[in-house]
Structure formats: C-alpha cells, structure tokens
C-alpha cells in the first residue's frame, strides 16, 4: 500500500508527529501557513515557534511536566531533544533559546527526505465525516490519513470547517477556566466531611 500522511500545522505537535511518522519511512506532507499567513501571536518563519514563555517547565522527576519530558525522551521525541540541545541555564527548569530551538527543529524537519513542507494555509473545505477517501494512483491504493495540529490560534476558515466537521457546538474559541485544586490539599476538617453536626 502506498502510504502518505497529511499534517496540518507545523507547530510543536505537528512537527513531533511528522518526525515520528517519517522515521518509519512513511511520506508526510506538512502544511504550514507561515510565512504567507501569521496568527496574532506568531511572528517568525520557522516551524515550532514558541509564542510566549521560553520555558518548558521543570525537568525534575517529581514534577508532572518533568515526568512527561522524561517519558518523551524515552520515546525518542525530536522536539524534546531539540529543546535539550538548545537549552539555556534556568535552574531546574528546561528553558530554551527560542530562536535556536525553532531553527533546529525546522532544520531537522526540512532535511528529512520523507517530509515535504507546503507553505500554504489549509482551509479544510474537503474535511468530511464518513468513509475516508481512498485514492487509487497508478494502480496503488493510498490511504489518506490526516492530522490536524493547528494549535490554539487555528486560522478562521479552517476553524469554521472543523466546526462543520465536529458539530457547531463542539469547537470552542475561548478558554475561560476556573482554577483547579487537588482534593488532598483541601482542608477537609474531618468533623464535617460527610458527617454533618
């Protein structure tokens, strides 16, 4: 079977997925709308642009995000490897030189022979539920797999088409979240826990 995967969005998630797939000899088409179009927070031509803080948080084993990074290293994550290689001193945290980090990821993706970068906005008109298309090209069957990794600032047209795909009320544009605390840190003064009076 002739295989090809389309990835939309060359950010952190899209680049990691592209690398993992290409590594197994599978062809990847990676759509990235920059530099033809930028979101309100992106400003740089590189893939895997870090838009805000340059910290990937703690590296400690006893920190949840530190553990996640440790797991990702075990799984041969390209992005965490690039972060490690471009890190700047930040105590227990993994902070990166954001410019160097994005440049390195871009280089690794660009030089991968299985990945083709297409600098174009994908608008998603063709997105649909139902049977996936299988294309026959030169007698070979293509199975079209698509990964949408367009991030928190997904372009408007694509967002509209995603909400068409998923159902209008299942796509959110704003996050207005209340804080969350762990139960064990709440002072459950025993006398009143489930035992009135």
């Amino acid at each position, binding site marked *: 079977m002739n*295989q090809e*995967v389309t990835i939309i969005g060359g950010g952190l*998630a*899209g680049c*990691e*997925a*592209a*690398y*993992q*797939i290409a590594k*197994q000899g*599978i062809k990847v088409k990676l759509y990235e709308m920059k530099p033809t179009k930028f979101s*309100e*927070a992106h400003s740089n031509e590189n893939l895997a642009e870090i838009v805000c803080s340059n910290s*990937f*948080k703690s590296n400690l084993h006893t920190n*949840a*995000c530190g*553990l*996640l990074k440790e*797991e*990702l290293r075990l*799984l041969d*994550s390209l992005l*965490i490897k690039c972060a490690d290689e471009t890190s700047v001193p930040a105590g227990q945290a993994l902070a990166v030189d954001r410019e160097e980090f994005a440049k390195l990821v871009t280089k690794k993706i660009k030089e991968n022979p299985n990945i083709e970068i297409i600098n174009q906005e994908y608008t998603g008109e063709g*997105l*649909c*539920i*139902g049977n*996936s298309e299988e294309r026959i090209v030169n007698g070979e069957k293509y*199975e079209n*797999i*698509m*990964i*949408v*990794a*367009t*991030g*928190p600032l997904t372009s408007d047209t694509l967002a509209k088409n995603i909400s068409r795909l998923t159902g209008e*009320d*299942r*796509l*959110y544009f*704003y*996050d*207005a*979240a*209340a*804080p*969350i*605390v*762990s*139960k064990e840190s*709440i*002072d459950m003064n025993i006398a*009143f*826990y*489930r035992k*009135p*009076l």
Partner: protein
Amino acid sequence: MPFTGNRYDQERGKEEEIEDWEKRLGSQEASYINLPMNKEEYETFYKELVSAEVVTLHEFEKREIFEGCMPIEIMAKRGEDTLRFGPLKPVGFTDPRTTRRPYAVVQLRQDDVNGTIYNLVGFQTNLKYGEQKRVFSHIPGLANAEFVKYGVMHRNTYINSSELLDNTYCLKKNPNIYFAGQITGVEGYVESISSGMVVGLNVVNKLQGKEKIEFPKNTMIGALANYIATPNEKFQPMNANFGILPELGERIKDKKVKYGKLADRAIEALNAIK
C-alpha cells in the same frame, strides 16, 4: 470545614428530622465540596479579590473575550454583595457545623473521574497566577491548596475531545482523521508535543496494520490522552499534573516522596510496553 453535596439538595427540609437530614446528606455523592464563609471571611476575601493584580490581555483577545463569561473579579467589582447573589450564593445550604445558612458558599466541583481534583465553580479569572494563589487562599479550606491549574481567560481554539476523540486522539467518527496539540484540549508546550507523539506512533501502527497504542493510564502521556478522551460535560483544557494519574495503593504524606513514586511507576510502565 468543607462539606460535600449539591447546592440543591443541601438544605434541611422544613418537616425533616435532623437524623433524616443527616442521613440524606451523608449519602450524597461527593462530586461537590462546599466551603462555607462567615461574614468576616467573606469581607476579607472580597477586599483581596477586588484589589488583586490582573493580566493585560492581548488586543485580539479583548475584543470578544468577556462576551459569554465574566471574570469573577469584574463581577465582584459591581458591588460587595454581587457574588453572594451569584456564584457564591448560600441559598439552599445549611452549614452542618452551625446548622445555619452560611454567609456565602464557594462550591468546588469534581473535575476528573478519580475525584482527585476539583475546580472552583464560577471562578474563571484574569488574575495573575501568583495573585490567584494569594487571593483564593483566603477562602476557608483553601489556605494550603495546591493549584494543579490556574484560571485563565484567553483565546484558545479547541474541540470537545471528551466527546469526539478516542485515547489515541483519533476522531471517533472518522478513523482517518486525528487531532494533535493544543486544539485537542491538552494545554502547554510539552503536553502538545506529547499528543503529537501519541498520534505519530498510532498513525504508523495504523498504516502498518498493527494495533493501536494505548499508553498506560499511569504514565503521564497516557493519563493526558485518557483525560481528554473521557466523557466530561464540563470539558476544559488540561495540563500535565499528578492529579490525573491513578492513586498509589498506599497513602504517602510527603508530596515529594509520593510524586517520586508515581513517577517511578510511570517510567516502569512505559519501559514495559516499549
């Protein structure tokens, strides 16, 4: 200080015997934890809340952000009692400690299936992270609260994964479409990378005709994938935190020791499937 149970079922009925009421409360599910405030506690909290420092939003965020949902500090500024008639309304509650209606009540709602993390109902906020910790610690019962996630209000496009995706970030309705990154409701740089990893590995397996890879729930990468794929009426983005891992079989007081054990267990589980 806190007591559990839903706002609508807490109050003692006029005819109800104390014993019956007690029994009824005792049998209520623990999906809400209620933190009663007296007048003095409320006033202290209120003063801190209205004078706390807030985050300056990006221009593009300001345009639409408050349309559907008002930050608690803005609501509070409308008047000293506004919160007591809104999200902190004490009506329907009887404080088991005093058997009287509290002056105000903060409700915490269970946020994960394990019941290890709770969100502060109605507390969406733009306070700076440090300020959230400082101000919300004035709420009785939260003096030493550990915030696994701070409140935020910002532009963020994400789908309702809890309904739409399976635990490999694959669209249930179309197995050839996957989502990865912040758009799935994972929150943060490393979390976005971790979802890209899960998707990448699964797409490879799918194309090679192999089984899908469901990471164990006791790994952080697996816990996140499972969190976002678990049905949840109030689905909200989530970052990596120990609260989403299944608990250890033993009770360990020291947090560092506990987290160390959870982390060891995760790495072991991951090595076992590699």
